[in-house]
């Protein structure tokens, strides 16, 4: 297993960061068309059509086997079972299945439970059609010294960075991120800066709350970015109950942190009020910026490097009518950095923003996908967009509005065209959440994996 890694961690983080930087300066490799645009630049890339989408799915009490599962959907139109669920791995427990992420070599899919703190590592390379449970990490909280709610799994060279949401002392929002090797060995804990311990970071505004959510990197600038959501007590709470509990509503993140990627040291803490969630960085070698959206205040924020090489955070657009709290959730940037898809959970819409001027995004299209919508994964060529519904077990809508599905749309640059829907409740699967792509092509060329951006640079 180890010997098949596409490159060796031994080169060290610094070297890898530099390699990453070079890789991206050349722009997007032309061969790549199929892959998701929100992946780590360190990751192996799919060439051609993706074959599968892996959906990390929450179990529902009283439905089917009641537990979380990884659901594999066949999405290659050439396949006989196109548009069907082809495989299910049940993992035991309702762990509050949330996000998942692939290792740099893309052989393993890490999927976390925000409640149980378990991390399930699936082997997706031995048989991409039928992933199997390879390993379960149960001691995340103990190893990290008290982090709760493993959220984002983000590939760095030979490593997985796992950002958390909460802690084991008060189930509030103060937290950090943890670094593991791709094999699942714990390496280090990095706590988010708080006022008593800014860890060398500059508190540029009023807030340093120590909250966490997403993590993304811009290797060419040696930058890592983190955002901030809320702690266990809120993300596990009945959504209606939380909205009417004024104390609970005070406990959302209002910060983003810019880190030095290779030293893992926080550099700047920015005020980004209203729970900044997903971070998506531009791909082009000259676009030194990333976007985020704030869930509660419904804004698009741009985190960018200014002319003087200083990082800044600016509010650049409203999403829908913020006074109606549309609740922007997942976002997805197009590979050419020209468009940003933004999902709004409450009205079930996806909205396309023209971001050709990143300081001035303009909404140019919107479409209602269903009664509720959360995640989007688009293909690298932007032609396919997959959608799922679930936000959190206790936050999803209720009654007939609690639709749970996986949908594929085609995008022609002007309009979304619905292709197929898989009803997760009808199949007694549960609540569909995070999606990741799989493809046979990734592994047929192993062990050299010549399709990773990094290995292309190395050649």
């Amino acid at each position, binding site marked *: 297993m180890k010997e098949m890694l596409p490159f060796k961690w031994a080169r060290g983080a610094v070297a890898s960061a530099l390699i990453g930087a070079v890789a991206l300066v050349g722009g997007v490799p032309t061969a790549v068309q199929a892959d998701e645009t929100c992946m780590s630049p360190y990751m192996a890339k799919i060439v051609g059509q993706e074959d599968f989408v892996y959906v990390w799915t929450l179990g529902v009490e009283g439905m089917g086997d009641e537990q979380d599962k990884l659901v594999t959907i066949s999405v290659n139109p050439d396949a006989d079972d196109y548009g069907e669920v082809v495989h299910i791995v049940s993992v035991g427990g309702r762990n509050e299945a949330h996000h998942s992420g692939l290792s740099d070599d893309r052989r393993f899919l890490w999927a976390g439970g925000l409640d149980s703190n378990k991390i399930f590592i699936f082997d997706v390379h031995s048989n991409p059609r039928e992933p199997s*449970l390879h390993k379960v990490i*149960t001691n995340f909280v103990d190893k990290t010294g008290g982090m709760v709610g493993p959220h984002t799994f983000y590939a760095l060279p030979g490593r997985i960075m796992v950002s958390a949401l909460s802690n084991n002392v008060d189930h509030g929002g103060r937290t950090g991120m943890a670094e593991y090797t791709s094999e699942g060995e714990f390496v280090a804990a990095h706590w988010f800066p708080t006022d008593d311990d800014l860890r060398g970071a500059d508190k540029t505004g009023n807030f340093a709350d120590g909250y966490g959510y997403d993590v993304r990197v811009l290797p060419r600038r040696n930058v890592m970015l983190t955002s901030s959501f809320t702690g266990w007590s809120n993300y596990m709470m009945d959504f209606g109950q939380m*909205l009417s509990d004024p104390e609970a509503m005070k406990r959302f993140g209002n910060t983003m942190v810019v880190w030095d990627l290779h030293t893992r040291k926080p550099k700047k803490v920015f005020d980004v009020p209203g729970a900044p969630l997903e971070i998506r960085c531009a791909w082009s070698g000259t676009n030194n910026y990333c976007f985020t959206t704030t869930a509660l205040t419904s804004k698009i924020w741009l985190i960018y490097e200014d002319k003087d090489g200083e990082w800044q955070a600016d509010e650049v657009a409203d999403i829908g009518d913020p006074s109606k709290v549309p609740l922007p959730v997942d976002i997805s940037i197009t590979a050419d950095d020209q468009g940003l898809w933004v999902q709004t959970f409450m009205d079930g819409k996806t909205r396309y923003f023209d971001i050709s001027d990143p300081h001035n995004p303009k909404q140019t299209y919107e479409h209602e996908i269903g009664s509720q919508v959360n995640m989007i994964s688009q293909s690298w060529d932007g032609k396919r967009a997959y959608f799922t519904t679930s936000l959190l077990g206790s936050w999803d809508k209720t009654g007939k509005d609690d639709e749970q599905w996986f949908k594929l749309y085609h995008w022609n640059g002007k309009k979304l065209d619905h292709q197929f829907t898989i009803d997760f409740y009808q199949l007694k699967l549960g609540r569909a959440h995070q999606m990741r792509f799989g493809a046979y092509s990734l592994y047929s060329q192993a062990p050299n994996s010549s399709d990773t951006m990094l290995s292309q640079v190395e050649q």
Partner: protein
Amino acid sequence: MIINMLKLYAWSLFLFFCCIFISSSTILLADDDGVDKEAVFGPGDRKHGYDKESYVTNSLSVTARKGKQADLLQFFNEIPLGLPKMKLPGGSTMTEEKISLGRRLFFDRRLSLNDTFSCAICHIPEQGFTNNELATALGFEGRSVKRNSPTIYNVGYYNVFFHDAREDSLEQQVWSPLLARNEMANPSIGYVINKIKRIKEYEGLFEAAFDGKGLTMETVGEALSSYQRTLNSANSRFDQWYYAKQEDALTEDEKAGFALFTGKGKCSACHLINEEYALFTDNLLHNTGHGYAVSMGIQPEKTRVQLAPGVFVNVDTEIIDSVRQSPKQNDVGLYTITQNPFDRWKFRTPILRNVALTAPYMHDGAFTNLRKVVEFYNQGGVPNELLSPLISPLNLTEQEIDQLVAFMLSLTGDNIEILVADGFAAPIGDIRTQDPNWAHDSEFKTE
């Protein structure tokens, strides 16, 4: 330059609000003994002034939450001034072994079905051994508990436990949270016993603490109760003034507040104070009208929801209800236990010691600060056919309300730092690879 000035401005604003907060709520700043005082008196994630746009964080890191183990038995053997000697159930004794075992259990998250809930997750040391951040508790898998987590300070002085007094023994009480599906969700008593048996840290501890009796349903209860019976906190400034006759221990306003508490305010009719000690409870249940109002009240059409510091919106309550997973749970209090219609909306009188540290208040955490509680009493509670005859409009002036609040803020015990620091030092039992779990027992390789 301008940025620096802005920062200075922000800081002065911050200090200003800080002062308001400190002066209006606590006193807590005792002398220096090495423990981070700020960290033991409230959540490390401080949100004072969050309703204003000028809010500035002053957060503490989780990793700095370090403590010091205390000799807890002393707080049982030498009861702090203002409290009576504590009675133990027949035949029971207090020992260091039992206390330390109970303390380990209290902080052990493995005592729940999915290894995420200890007693201390709802009874958090620095949050007054309650939860200051939630009106009503949240348990296993985020399931709602309809009531506010009460403090564990001085809990050994109750004759009856829970807001509705459904339990009358601390030893028995512990099994309610352990087995409740919305708290720690263990499927059975046997499950809990067997799980503890398989956790290495407990090897031999029950045998040693309980004279060969070992690990049983009773000894789990006794160990946890032993720890809880040491969390006795008094010798507050009020006690020093009232019982030790130190004239200057209270300010004039606080003394005036005491006079109101025992006089015009009629508070001590239920929150008892006598010449030797003050429990501030009669261990009885009363209808103050609060439970009635919550059960029978009409919901407002709009709910004010905070989105960020200083940012609020009014959301249609209908929209909020559309994302409510289950309807708000009703609570009829003692009636639920007796089925006697005359017991509707009766709740047990809580001990008011350390009340500065135990917000939010009442059985449902509806009141976020003490002033709101006093205003509630001042209007005569909420009239209903079963309202306690001891409650009626008080005609307190604004100054008198402040004085009553000031008095209640003087009830903070002098050993809080020691008890909380001891809680910080307690081992948090998080699951490790040698602990019971299917993922450890199967062919799966784990760390």
